[in-house]
């Protein structure tokens, strides 16, 4: 079974600085998707960024980028120029590419606070 591990329960960053959130996963599959979701106090789950395992290039979305290390099964999220609105809980998630076992598995999450 696939597992997703986020070992840091909390992190803090100064406004305008850069922070990296860690995520590792365990799988025997070669083709899959990885995601980072943001959950602000409103509870709404918001997609931050996605990565397809077959793509070697790291995904980027404005101030958000990932460091995808397939061999190490690592998928970290870097937030540049942190803003107060980035404060939220962040979840790493894994999904098989397709098939009957395509459940979406989440890590336990990390709470990010941003200091003004």
């Amino acid at each position, binding site marked *: 079974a696939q597992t997703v591990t986020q070992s840091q329960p909390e992190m803090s960053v100064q406004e305008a600085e850069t922070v990296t959130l860690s995520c590792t996963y365990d799988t025997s599959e070669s083709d899959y998707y990885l995601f980072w979701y943001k959950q602000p106090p409103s509870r709404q789950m918001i997609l931050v960024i996605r990565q397809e395992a077959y793509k070697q290039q790291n995904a980027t979305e404005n101030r958000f980028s990932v460091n995808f290390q397939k061999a190490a099964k690592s998928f970290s999220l870097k937030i540049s120029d942190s803003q107060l609105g980035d404060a939220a809980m962040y979840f790493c998630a894994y999904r098989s590419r397709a098939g009957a076992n395509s459940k*979406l598995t989440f890590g336990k999450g990390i709470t990010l606070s941003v200091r003004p």
Partner: protein
Amino acid sequence: NAGVTQTPKFRILKIGQSMTLQCTQDMNHNYMYWYRQDPGMGLKLIYYSVGAGITDKGEVPNGYNVSRSTTEDFPLRLELAAPSQTSVYFCASSYSRGVNTEAFFGQGTRLTVV
């Protein structure tokens, strides 16, 4: 475009009562999921479905049941509610493959069992 709609948003149940959490999506997604999120914790998968007529257990299925008779709807049934089922429940849906495979989430249902 409504996306994923969950009802109700809030509910208080007494121990032993039953209820159905409704979830419907209008994006023609074939995959649908139910999660529960306890305070300060991550999302735990209850049940999921890869298409109409197909459902499977996640990591915490006990005390719940689901059905998927149509592509759009994926209701979650709680039988004999217990205090341990106090949580926030999220329904989500996604495409199986393609460019946009991320899950879209409903706004959640906050359930309290007293």
